[in-house]
């Protein structure tokens, strides 16, 4: 049996979880086994899962589950996995999915493979997983049963399918006091910034050490505004306090896939590229024609960003006016 841990927020199933259900269905079908799911707290979202091929939706009911409670959720998962004899337990490789799966691994003393793109069940289970924020791929053997795995979001698209009964089985997991020490309290929402968010922006004008200073970002802001985009930056920039960390692109920043990425004075370290490799078009401005980023970009201007950007801004204004 393949068991998928399904995350939800405000009555809606999380998209990465639905993708994981689709992947789980493929594994279950190939093995001729049923696909089951665990929903913690909100029984309302269970109904939808039948259409995705889920035979039984286990719903863990407990007072603790009005907010996110990762240890308690893992305890519920451990109970269902052992009761049903699951051979594979999957969750989304999201912050919550990885967290609950790691707790499940700790509670059961089983290994966990996080951020996988391929899972081949067996003994051992074989996985292919992302390292270094996706800059490297690892093949690994995962010993032990059930195989505990999280999947990189967008490994497959979420698609309804299969003929699941979607039967709902409610249960109350046995929780220890310690399981209830870690429970999220909702804080007031962060200030809504007025501009486009980095993650969703179509155009990102990004600066690195070569921009030289916080003030050096003024022309980047001007160009971003002209193109209806937003600002990104490298870690050198956030480390120097020139821009806030919310604008950092990369392995420990935000991962983006804009239509256009303009990299100004950025060398192209693998950890930066990990955040922008899926840009549709990349233009770079750099004084160094040998910079590593040339190997990832579509177009390059060799030159000083402080001189090149004002010229681009002027030409862009002319083009927009004409």
């Amino acid at each position, binding site marked *: 049996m393949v068991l998928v841990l399904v995350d939800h927020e405000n009555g809606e199933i999380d998209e990465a979880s639905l993708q994981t259900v689709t992947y789980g269905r493929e594994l279950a079908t190939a093995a001729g086994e049923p696909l089951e799911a665990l929903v913690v707290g909100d029984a309302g979202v269970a109904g939808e899962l039948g259409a995705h091929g889920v035979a039984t939706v286990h719903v863990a009911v407990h007072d603790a589950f009005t907010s996110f409670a990762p240890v308690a959720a893992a305890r519920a998962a451990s109970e269902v996995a052992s009761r049903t004899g699951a051979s594979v337990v999957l969750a989304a490789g999201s912050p919550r999915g990885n967290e609950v799966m790691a707790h499940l691994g700790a509670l059961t003393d089983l290994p*966990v493979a996080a951020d996988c793109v391929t899972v081949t069940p067996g003994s051992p289970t074989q996985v292919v997983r992302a390292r270094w924020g996706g800059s490297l791929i690892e093949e690994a053997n995962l010993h032990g049963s059930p195989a505990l795995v999280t999947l990189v979001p967008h490994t497959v698209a979420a698609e309804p399918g299969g003929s699941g009964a979607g039967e709902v089985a409610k249960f109350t997991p046995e929780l220890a006091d310690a399981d209830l020490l870690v429970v999220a309290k909702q804080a007031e929402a962060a200030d809504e910034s007025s501009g486009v968010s980095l993650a969703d922006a179509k155009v990102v004008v990004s600066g690195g050490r070569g921009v030289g200073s916080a003030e050096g970002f003024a022309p980047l802001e001007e160009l971003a505004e002209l193109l209806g985009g937003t600002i990104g930056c490298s870690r050198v920039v956030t480390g120097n306090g020139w821009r806030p960390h919310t604008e950092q692109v990369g392995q420990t920043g935000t991962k983006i896939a804009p239509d256009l990425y303009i990299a100004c004075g950025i060398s192209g370290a693998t950890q930066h590229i990990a955040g922008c490799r899926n840009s549709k078009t990349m233009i770079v401005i750099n004084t160094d024609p040998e910079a590593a980023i040339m*190997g990832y*970009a579509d177009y390059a201007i060799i030159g000083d960003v402080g001189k090149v950007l004002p010229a681009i801004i002027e030409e862009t204004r002319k083009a927009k006016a004409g």
Partner: protein
Amino acid sequence: MDVLVCIKRVPLSGGKFTITEDGLDIESAKLGFTISPHEEVAVEEAVRIAEKEGGSVTVLTLGPPDAEEQIREQMAIGADRGILIETDGQEWDPQGTASAIADAINADETDFDLIIMGNESADASGYQVGIRVAHKLGRPIATGVKGITIADGKATFERPVKTGRELYEMPLPAVVTVLDGLNIPRYPSVPGRIRAKKKPIERLNPERPQPKLEKTRLEVPAMKAKQAQVLGNGPDAAPAVVEIFKQIGVI
């Protein structure tokens, strides 16, 4: 407050990774080494807590003897002592790593009030060593944290989520995993570096358990081979850039 921070020595790749012939490691002969930004902010936070509340900062790593370099770097910004769990250079899997770290913590004479880890390591990115250590020690843990407040024997951890922020409140001692952006780490000073040379490091030598998550091969993912088309040198290239803007429809 006695704080322990766990850091991991990793190669700094620059523009691309090269894999060793046996397919199991990154070719690192010509590379420098570093730790994850998540762990840099962890040490900075620990030093700030000790400066404010008093107490000590210990840095622990499981790695080759050369990982002393990473401990000394963090001592230069203010950590007081180090624990180096020595390996022969082979990677340990997350369970083996967490067991060895928990054993070292249990055996230590200091009762750490707070243990800070990275949310995920730079290289293996397993998202689990912190959580496994917390379970072994029987302590609560919050993950993915970008704000720490300590008051009255309690910790409040702030975690950014899609919908805004979540708060986790728990009694100390506790464990927390943190994210880059928690603070801006300071640069080591020259006197800091000199002091670091004299600070104590304790070395442990447990045996590597058989990995249950067993790496069998590393590979650089295939990418569309690209080489940027040079549009020109200096400001004269501006019209060609604007042509591209038009072609791809951003103006």
